[in-house]
């Protein structure tokens, strides 16, 4: 039986939400962009990924026969990987400000220092990394002041000993609530973080 046609509206919506999740994650690891994102909003990134896939003149993103007939689910899974790679490539080129700074601020110049993703990953030793992670965690949690139920959930995910990946089921058990409630709370958390990512962290982007 022939596969149903790929629903590209669904592909577009799912990829846009995934791009928003990646931007939210970037805020959580302690990076805010030094410049406004401009045309690189989640929807634009998703759109560009699909356009590269559909454009017959662009062979860089193409469906392989080995994957079998394309379906909506399979195309979403494939393009998510492409988008993830593109997102990181794009962000690697950008200049970032970290959300936190270790130690005292000696000058304005130091406060305005910018980094690339590679700088951030490479420029810290393991001991310093732990301190920075703790401070980043505090900064992210600070964005949820006044929303204790969300703050608690974020705190669970961003354990100072390492980012936790609790499933919604596990979080529901930990908080004695339902998976549906966790999903609703995560939606609100993501919305706040997406806004922060889009604003370059200005809303609450003070150094800690």
């Amino acid at each position: 039986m022939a596969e149903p046609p790929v629903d590209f509206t669904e592909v577009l919506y799912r990829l846009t939400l995934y791009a928003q999740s990646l931007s939210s994650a970037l805020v959580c690891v302690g990076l805010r962009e030094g410049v406004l994102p401009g045309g690189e909003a989640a929807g634009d990134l998703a759109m560009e990924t699909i356009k590269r896939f559909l454009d017959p003149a662009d062979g860089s993103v193409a469906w392989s026969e080995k994957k079998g007939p394309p379906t909506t689910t399979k195309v979403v899974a494939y393009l998510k990987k492409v988008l993830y790679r593109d997102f990181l490539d794009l962000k690697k080129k950008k200049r970032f400000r970290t959300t936190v700074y270790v130690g005292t601020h000696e000058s304005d110049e130091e406060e305005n220092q910018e980094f690339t993703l590679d700088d951030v990953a490479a420029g810290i030793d393991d001991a310093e990394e732990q301190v920075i992670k703790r401070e980043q965690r505090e900064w992210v949690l600070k964005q949820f002041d006044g929303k204790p139920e969300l703050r608690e959930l974020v705190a669970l995910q961003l354990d100072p000993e390492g980012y936790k990946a609790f499933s919604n089921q596990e979080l529901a058990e930990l908080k004695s609530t339902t998976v549906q409630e966790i999903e609703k709370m995560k939606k609100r958390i993501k919305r706040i973080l997406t806004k922060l990512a889009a604003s370059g962290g200005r809303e609450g982007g003070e150094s800690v």
Partner: protein
Amino acid sequence: MSKRKTEKLFDEIRRLADCFGEGEEKLTVEELHEQLRQSGVDPDELRARLHLAAKQFAERERTADRRVSDLLNQAIDSTRPPTDIPRDPAAARKAMDRWLGWFSSPFRMPENLEVCRAYRKTGEVSKDDLDDLNRLEQELKRKVKEESERKT
């Protein structure tokens, strides 16, 4: 530069993104549409842009006397405006379902309307949320007043 550290950072970003997106895979297209709208994205505008881009690719292929791929045709069909029915019967049925879904979605009532109301009255709502609720209440009252004034 430590490649290991870069990979570790990227891995953390991906894991956190997966965590934020958990549960989204089971959302219907209408629910995805609503979630995007709530996050400040205009999903209809995005879809229209993709539709236009797909049509331009197809037009370019036809002009060059090349065959338009099935995927490109599917992209055009599945991103059409809701009132524009695709030629493919399966895509046409899906478009109609989506159109009906959009038509009815604004009338969906929150499942926990009573719980929300009780929660607000307990005084346990944070100041920010309380401000939001008060603002929404004022907005609703204003709209109701305007509507009733227009009718009279």
